[in-house]
């Protein structure tokens, strides 16, 4: 697949605050790419630069090899689905979808055919003459998608398009969006702060933090081989423990030497060790590689979420077997469950569950919503 969009050293500041710092990225034709990160990481700004709503301060933006940094939005073969839908309230469903074609002075017959085709794709046949303000959020979103796709853009940009929908509808729309992308076969660039959404929809995920790209990879790469503590923490749950690389395939942490699969580090190099909560087995204390005391247990439906205090560091473990609080347990970790990362500026900031509570998650979600 050829490079369709290329960002070379893109930087952008607002009021002296750098929101994008020398971004290099290319996006291939037909790919479903997700820009994933917490609020304020610069993902939306990046999307707006590609859409033509912001101009980068520095760097080059190439489309099909040609520079388009100074091409206005209306001349770019790129359409956007906005978070708040941005449907035109003075037009009905049909006219909203037909809007781009009317601008291009497409013949009435052809407009009718293409709008009908779009309505069928987004399952809104029969809604032609409805006032857009009478539609539900999900229906408005479908109209916005149909309107953005009807002029056959080469790229569709989606700015947290499912953010305003409830959970059930969101899951349905995720599948539908993925199907639509396969059907039209064009590049989708999708912005979200929801890691689950990113993992389930994307061909490629671009994890961003503090205006910089932290990691680019497939969902499985990002989950299994996070590059640093930020990525490991942001995608799923992780225990991130300080460790020392004794030799290739041997790491010491929490007072025990573990066998692992990673290598290529310096002798006795300090590293961050990631262990996913679902990869830790609970065993009897005498059989465990590590032992600790259970401090809290939360029932999550599929599993129990167990917080274990091991020498002052709190681990999260997910287990289908119940253990009681205050119980002394042993932990067993397979070599392939241990992932070693180089130290980064995010080391020590994440991965300890001593202050963990669901409340914090809720708070950061509210923050994310506020950004828009």
């Amino acid at each position, binding site marked *: 697949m050829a490079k369709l969009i290329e960002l070379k050293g893109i930087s952008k500041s607002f009021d002296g605050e750098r929101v994008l710092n020398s971004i290099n990225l290319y996006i291939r034709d037909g790919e479903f790419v997700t820009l994933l990160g917490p609020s304020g990481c610069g993902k939306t700004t990046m999307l707006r630069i590609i859409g033509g709503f912001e101009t980068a301060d520095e760097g080059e933006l190439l489309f099909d090899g040609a520079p388009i940094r100074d091409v206005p*939005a209306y001349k770019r073969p790129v359409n956007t689905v906005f978070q708040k839908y941005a449907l035109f309230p*003075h037009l009905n469903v049909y006219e909203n979808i037909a809007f781009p074609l009317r601008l291009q002075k497409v013949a009435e017959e052809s407009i009718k055919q293409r709008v009908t085709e779009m309505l069928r794709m987004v399952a809104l046949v029969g809604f032609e003459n409805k006032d857009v303000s009478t539609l539900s959020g999900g229906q408005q979103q479908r109209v916005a998608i149909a309107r953005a796709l009807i002029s056959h853009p080469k790229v569709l940009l989606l700015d947290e398009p499912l953010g305003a929908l409830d959970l059930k509808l969101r899951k349905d729309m995720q599948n539908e969006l993925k199907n639509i992308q396969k059907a039209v076969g064009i590049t989708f660039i999708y912005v979200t702060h929801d890691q689950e959404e990113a993992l389930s929809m994307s061909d490629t995920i671009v994890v961003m933090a503090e205006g910089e790209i932290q990691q680019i990879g497939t969902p499985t790469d990002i989950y299994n081989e996070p590059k640093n503590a930020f990525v490991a923490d942001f995608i799923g749950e992780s225990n991130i423990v300080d460790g020392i690389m004794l030799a290739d395939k041997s790491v010491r942490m929490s007072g025990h030497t573990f066998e692992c699969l990673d290598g290529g580090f310096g002798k006795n190099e300090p590293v961050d060790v990631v262990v996913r909560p679902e990869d830790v087995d609970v065993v009897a204390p005498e059989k465990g590689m590590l032992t600790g005391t259970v401090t809290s247990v939360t029932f999550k439906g599929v599993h129990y979420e167990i917080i274990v205090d091991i020498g002052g560091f709190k681990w999260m473990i997910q287990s289908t077997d119940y253990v009681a609080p205050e119980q002394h347990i042993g932990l067993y970790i397979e070599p392939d469950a241990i992932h070693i990362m180089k130290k980064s500026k995010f080391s020590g900031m994440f991965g300890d569950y001593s202050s963990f509570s669901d409340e914090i998650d809720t708070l950061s979600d509210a923050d994310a919503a506020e950004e828009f």
Partner: protein
Amino acid sequence: MLFADDGICLKMKKNKSLMHSIAAAPHIFWAALFIVVPLLIVVYYAFTDVEGGFSMENIFGLTEYFDIFLLSLELAVIATFVCLLVGYPMAYFIAKADPKMQKIYMMLLMLPMWTNLLIRTYSIMAILDDGGFLNTLLGTELHIIGTKGAVIFGMVYDFLPYMVLPIYTCISKINKNMWEAASDLGCSPLQVLTKVILPLSLSGIISGVTMVLVPCISTFYISQKLGGGTFELIGDTIERQFVSGTLNVGAALSFVMMILILISLWVMHKFSDGQEGGIVP
């Protein structure tokens, strides 16, 4: 509106409703004394003759003022149209300026309104007069005062802010998303204006047109001063009736004008139904 207030009061606790009644009393008294009573007086005079008996003569006699009415309408419509032509781009420009500048522009727009309308009209007279400032400055002998143009100019100058304000309010309320979505979907800057912003600011335009057209139709001092005595508009006619003592005819004229304005407001309201951001209720 007063009755609606009462209805709400009834649903509340008794002592609260009493408080509301007391609080509303001055307003009700004021509205009754200075709005309702004068209107009733106008209606009374419109349908009575000099002796005080019921009469339709005043109303039927109004046909002789038909030409004056048409002239008033013509000038008012032209002035309103010019206001719209000048005011819309102004409102658009102000709404798109950065917020700090918007405040300054709004102040500049409102500043002339701090001066009394009459004084402003006199100033225009002084500027446009045959031996006035403009002719002295240019060294010409242009005859402006006394033409339709001068009257229209006066109307536009006096009432322009009433056109700009509702349109500005309307445009500045349009979500930034609309601009971006329009240009994203292929609208050039001009098309963004004509295909999206103009239709979305229709209610502002209707408000503005109403707020300019109504005072333009009924104005009398602008036509007296800038018309140089060559014009008589409907406002002048009404004023003349009251000054010369033919109260019944003046009242009948006022009454008919009021009905016409109410009808046109109602039509405008129907027309702008479902649009948000208008000032006309």
